[in-house]
């Protein structure tokens, strides 16, 4: 049986729904020893900013139960280096290049969008309005009016599809989502990390130099799934889901709940072939269930809970 994983968002076609979460896959060919980039639905870069950023002081990462905290702080070599040294690599590939961008102001985002849309090979933009690890990282996401203003300003200058990446914490995600949709975002990326903290009991110091870091990995998967569900219940908007997806079973939970695309994130750090394993696993599942098209699987979540018709919530 030939499995058809083709996924469309607006005018953009993805050969399959498997992508990578920004910040976990480098900016160029870091995973080329393990992954055939042409087999990915899309590659989403680590955040690119207008000027180079050196990121946060060390320590920046720590392991937590079924997850990790990071406070990298958007370290990157800046837009010009990206255009000159990184984009050419993607031009030769068949996969979609989605460039994740962030700035300190609306002008920064607009500048980045205008500059990037002129570059051959850039297929879409992902607006990072939810990085918890930089000064103004969450400010746009914290306020629906600001989120609207930002997405609208970028919408006005580019025809590229826009994905807006939201944060789950502290704010009414659905109100921010609504603002972004009204402003013309083509899709939502759900979700960014959740701020957390860890303490070294020997030194009695925080484990991260910035005290807080973004929690990612399997620990946050149920939260990401819940937001996908809520957004899909409320809006007709394509969603790129991420949050602890480690294997095909995880990815299928999101696809069944309605995700248009899914991204493998933290799992790339542990298994550099995780994306390929997820893709193979989705195909095997569909073959086994005799489902030929991903569209016939996507969003087929049944309304009643339970396994084999029985409710899974234990009585008492």
């Amino acid at each position, binding site marked *: 049986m030939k499995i058809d994983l083709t996924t469309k968002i607006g005018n953009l076609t993805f050969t399959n729904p498997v992508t990578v979460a920004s910040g976990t896959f*480098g900016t160029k060919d870091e995973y080329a020893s393990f992954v055939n980039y042409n087999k990915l639905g899309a590659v989403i870069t680590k955040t690119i900013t207008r000027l180079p950023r050196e990121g946060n002081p060390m320590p920046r990462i720590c392991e937590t139960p079924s*997850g990790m905290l990071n406070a990298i702080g958007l*370290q990157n070599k800046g837009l010009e280096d990206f255009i000159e040294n990184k984009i050419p690599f993607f031009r030769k590939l068949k996969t979609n290049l989605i460039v994740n961008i962030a700035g300190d102001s609306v002008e920064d985002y607009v500048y980045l969008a205008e500059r990037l849309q002129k570059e051959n090979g850039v297929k879409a933009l992902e607006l990072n309005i939810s990085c918890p690890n930089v000064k103004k990282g969450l400010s746009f996401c914290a306020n629906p009016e600001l989120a609207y203003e930002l997405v609208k300003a970028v919408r006005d200058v580019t025809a590229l599809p826009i994905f807006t990446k939201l944060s789950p914490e502290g704010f009414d995600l659905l109100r921010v989502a609504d603002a972004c949709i009204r402003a013309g975002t083509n899709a939502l990326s759900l979700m960014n990390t959740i701020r957390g903290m860890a303490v070294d009991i020997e030194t009695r110091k925080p484990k991260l130099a910035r005290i807080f870091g973004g929690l990612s990995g399997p620990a946050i998967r149920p939260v990401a799934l819940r937001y996908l569900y809520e957004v899909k219940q409320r809006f007709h908007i394509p969603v790129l889901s991420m949050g602890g997806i480690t294997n095909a079973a995880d990815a299928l939970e999101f696809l069944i709940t309605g995700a248009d695309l899914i991204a493998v994130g933290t799992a790339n750090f542990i298994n550099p072939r995780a994306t390929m394993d997820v893709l193979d696993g989705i195909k095997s599942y569909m073959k086994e269930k005799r489902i030929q098209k991903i569209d016939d699987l996507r969003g087929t979540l049944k309304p009643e809970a339970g396994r084999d018709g029985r409710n899974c919530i234990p009585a008492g």
Partner: protein
Amino acid sequence: MHDVTVEILENKKINAVYWKLTFSSSKLSDNVRPGQFLNIQIENSTAPLWRRPFSYYRVSGPKVEILYEVVGCGTEKLSQKKRGSTLKILGPLGKGFSQKIGAKRRILVGGGCGVPPLIFLAGKTKLSDSTPPILLFGCQSDDAILPKTELSKLKNLVSYATEDGSCGTKGFVTKLLEKILKENNPKKLFIQTCGPKAMMEAVMRMARTVGVDGELSFDERMACGIGACLGCVVETKEGRKTSCHDGPVFSFEELP
């Protein structure tokens, strides 16, 4: 760079501090340079989530050995692995120590988990030279002293400093280095060091004072091991670089 599932040939405690893990894989052993490392997935689960990095200790043919200390939940679980169980191992990773250093004499300064890669490095040098490498190892007590069988031909080249004085010179390893630096022409020495950060910083400071070149190998906490997550960066004169991909070995010249 390969990600290989290997079978454990041996995993045993060799003294009060170190465990030795042995496995066989030509993909992980071919063209390895001392100072390079492996990122080992200890459990196929989310606890612990990350792999754990270990430097190469010894390589002969396809056989690879690493020495490790039990310091946390990852190494604890690793120490419980028996012969025949499997591990997923990513490697060889990073850039190793310089093997060619011209006509200079090699001074290897190690402490704790920094000792194994230096033994690997020393083993790769010609010991028949009139000026064989000098190995200076520091540890808390004689508990950590490697059995002579581990050092084989290197055993007469090693000097120890222990904090409690139970073996060799009492005090830090820098005490041994101080003597070497005094007794030799600095232009004819080259230092390579690996161990606790404070030790390496002291070694580099002393070396710079007298104008000796050298390299150090960082042991930063890391996740991916391939330069993607940017979690393990160190400060260099050219900005922040990853210790997993750009390092872990950096020359004194590159560092601030």
